[in-house]
């Protein structure tokens, strides 16, 4: 296996920085008259160095003041001097962006979720995303220092996220994460199949044994000495980079609580886990015992096919069963459970989300990393979460994230050994408030962008 060039990969790809409780998300726009300034600012960010690389161990990072990561939209890269011809080497979904009309149909961003109603990401001048992870005691220091560097782009919007294991509906979140081969020195947890690094970082072999499509630029004076060459004579801009998907998901806590009306079993069936994170497949009844994240990860080796084939315990349409079907699709695809698991592993995402609160509204800032947006994030969203016929179901989409076109009440089916139960009257519990696709360049690629 190729050794990962950890010191060229941004730290965000390896770390979620849970020890930095606060994350400041700065949405940046580069003004036309500030392009040179922005480049200088970027160069300063690199020379300090502010931006982390993945070679740093979590133990060391913990002692640092902050962690910084930067990502760019397609418009942002073009603004920083990536030629239009070179932009065509980026995968189409990144070029088009999340708010494009056809992508909205794929992602089911319609009705209340339509990009026209977004706070950001739709036809705005969003060029880059700067994430500053820090400790609460530091207050503003790192952010202010970064903004004080001359040439800092305009801040269009700013959201702060908190590191917590519990999302606003009070469910434990972030238990299932793919284990990326070679990214850490740790061994894969029991029952977890390691996933090839090429699923998350460009320049390495993916689950198909191929290299993910990597954007390239012309090998000119600007690229020479910085970016590695490719066999076709161009410079590999994408190497050690990744694609970042970001969505602001506002959660309507009151609507959810009113609907569930204290029925913990129903709430658990919608999610597929109890609030304490224990999976319904293993625990059909609630035990109420609090569990640590380590315990939950240890317990995360369950499958659906062998333990709950028909969905009598965890409904087929439950959120976690849709988002990561594990071996649940074996019957539908007519394959063995372990084959179904391998198939599902081609659609994993590395989640880096955080809970946010913005003018009294709370929700999840969903962030995920993947090397192939179309096969990973978009596939999970369209073929599993928002598929009305997922796993043999009929006319129902994800109970938590789903939205009907005209906000009509939706339904969810809970399988039962006699006749299935149809839970009616599901409202809109989550609304998309913004979203964009970003590219997280490797450090050398950032240097390339910073060059005049």
């Amino acid at each position: 296996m190729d050794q990962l060039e950890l010191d060229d990969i941004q730290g965000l790809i390896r770390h979620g920085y849970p020890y930095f409780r606060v994350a400041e998300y700065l949405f940046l726009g580069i003004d036309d008259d500030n392009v040179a300034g922005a480049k200088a600012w970027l160069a300063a960010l690199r020379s300090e160095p502010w931006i982390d690389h993945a070679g740093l161990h979590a133990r060391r990072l913990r002692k640092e003041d902050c962690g910084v990561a930067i990502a760019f939209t397609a418009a942002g890269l073009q603004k920083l001097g990536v030629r239009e011809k070179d932009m065509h080497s980026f995968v189409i979904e990144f070029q088009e962006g999340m708010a494009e009309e056809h992508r909205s149909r794929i992602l089911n961003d319609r009705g209340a979720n339509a990009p026209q109603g977004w706070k950001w990401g739709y036809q705005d001048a969003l060029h880059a995303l700067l994430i500053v992870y820090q400790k609460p005691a530091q207050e503003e220091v790192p952010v202010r220092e970064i903004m004080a560097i001359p040439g800092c782009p305009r801040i269009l919007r700013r959201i702060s996220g908190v590191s917590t294991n519990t999302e606003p509906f009070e469910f434990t979140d972030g238990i299932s994460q793919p284990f990326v081969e070679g990214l850490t020195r740790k061994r894969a947890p029991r029952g977890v199949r390691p996933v090839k690094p090429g699923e998350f970082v460009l320049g390495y072999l993916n689950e198909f044994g191929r290299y993910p499509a990597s954007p390239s630029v012309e090998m000119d004076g600007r690229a020479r000495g910085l970016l590695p060459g490719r066999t076709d004579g161009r410079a590999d801009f994408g190497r050690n980079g990744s694609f970042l998907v970001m969505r602001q998901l506002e959660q309507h806590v009151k609507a959810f609580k009113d609907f569930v009306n204290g029925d913990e079993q129903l709430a658990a069936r919608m999610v597929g886990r109890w609030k304490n994170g224990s999976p319904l497949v293993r625990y059909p009844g609630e035990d109420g015992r609090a569990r640590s994240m380590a315990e939950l990860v240890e317990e995360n080796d369950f499958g659906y096919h062998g333990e709950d084939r028909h969905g009598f315990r965890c409904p087929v349409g439950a959120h976690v069963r849709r988002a990561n079907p594990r071996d649940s699709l074996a019957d539908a695809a007519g394959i063995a459970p372990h084959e179904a698991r391998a198939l599902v592993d081609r659609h994993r995402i590395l989640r880096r989300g955080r809970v946010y609160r913005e003018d009294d509204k709370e929700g999840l800032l969903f962030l995920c990393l993947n090397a192939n947006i179309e096969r990973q994030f978009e596939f999970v969203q369209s073929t599993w979460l928002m598929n009305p016929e997922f796993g043999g179901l009929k006319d129902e989409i994800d109970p938590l994230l789903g939205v009907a076109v005209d906000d009509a009440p939706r339904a969810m089916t809970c399988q039962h050994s006699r006749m299935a139960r149809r839970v009616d009257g599901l409202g809109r519990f989550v609304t998309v408030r913004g979203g964009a696709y970003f590219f997280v360049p490797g450090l050398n690629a950032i240097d390339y962008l910073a060059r005049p």
Partner: protein
Amino acid sequence: MARRRPKAATQRALTILKPLRDASERAALESILRGHGNAMQSGGNSALRDAFDAIEGLHYLSWFVIDGVESASNPGAFEPPVLVLEANFDGAEKAFLRRLAGNAATKALLDEIYSRCSGYPVPGSSAEFTAHCLALGNSRPEVFYVARPGQSAAQLKEEARLAAAIEAAVGSLGEPYGRRLEHLRRIWDRLGSAQRRLIPNAPMKPFWVRHSLREQPLKAVFALVALLAVGGLITLALIGLDALGAPLWECLVPPRRVADAALCAALVLAALAGAGLVIWALFHVIEAPKDIRLSARVRIWGRKFRAIFRATIRTLPAALALVGVVAFLSWQGALLLHWASYVVLGLLAIALLAGLLLVLVAMRELVDGVDGMAWDPAKLTRLSAREDRGVQNHFISVTPVKPGRLRQAVLRIVLFLVNLLARVLYDRRGLAGIPSIHFARWQLLDGGQRLLFVTNYDGGWGGYLGDFVATAAFGMNAIWGSSGGFPRTFYLFFDGVKDEQRFKCYARNSQQETLFWYQRYPELSLAAIRRNAEMREELARLSEHLAPGAAPAAESELDAFLRRFAVPGR
């Protein structure tokens, strides 16, 4: 007794190519077709939709325009673009075209469109003559795949209605109460009399679907077991008689030569295997549901034994014929070896030829050009404008076939074999394990210069092409590997599409815009179509138990049926 059920319809495809009179007309023609297509899709022109709906047996129909090829007589110049009409329908081509040209609204559309093409009569010609002229431009696809062979468009619609009626009937009763069979009777009584008549009266599936190995593996196993067992046992008897030295059988006993011994050994092994299979089948098939009374279980066993007995009796003539052949061959063992050697030599020659072709292809593969990965957002916006609007999608691709006789020969062989496999190995899970394809076809254009692929499928484009990579890589490589610029294959079958993103980029770049697309049942996915058919079959089977004096249905079978349905609750 089994009723005489209606015959199944045959699904066919037509591809009518008509060159435009002049290349300059292309933009105008495209915008006309796009206009009609959009109006029909968005519901703006319901009259046109109704007109197409009225054409019996039509499943899908589309129009698109492809570039003309380079002129043979005048290199550098191009033939005019070609308008392609592509349709999937039930029944014969001519009859379908007559229906298409016989309908006033569709005839007017045909006249409007084809007035810009050559090879079409003056507008206002008779339907018969128009159909004839259109048929002249038709050619048959090299590979044609049908997801639900024998299921006519009308049947698909009917089954959707029946499923809705069944659902309503089950839903109105709610949770089962009392005995299951009584509950089933209540469901049955809720259905209208027309539905009760229709449900058990589904059209017969076509012969090659009914007898497909994939569809009824058990039946095939039984037939094989019966053949092997009977043949083997008789051979054993012959050998036994030989050992006893019975003079009467002397003429039938094979001379003791090595070849005969081998043949006998093979037959003994086959007989043993057959006996093993019978035992296995007894254990696995005769397993009756556990939740019913013993007397009912015995009755079920009795029925299953009778079924097996009947199946064996039915295969007996074939078994006896085989025994005859075996007896003759064991008598004439030397002759058999002689024949076998020819067969083996022939197979070897074919394998060698195939291997040689593969090596030649592999040598070309090394130097064949591969398209770079570049996505064109402007083209994609145009292509995806009508994509993912509903459950179903349409995809057309035209790729250039690599030059040279070798590629032509290999491609034609591959297409022939794929077509054979797509039909013979009819699979309930779809083409090569892809469950979401309604219809698909590959067709060579311009005498093999270009390869056309047209398909009607469910779900998103990315997931669909992803299925090609995940489950059908071999076949896709073998077919598209002969196309210019395709991701590099290795010995025809390997690599290629496994470079998933390059393949998808190639597929997008070779995609043609669907200008006009008609779907008979846009709301039905194949999953729904299968579910509807299964619901009908299950209820038809269960309803047999309602007849007076019929054996009781197994509780588990009824429960499995009821589990399909949901009742309101928490």
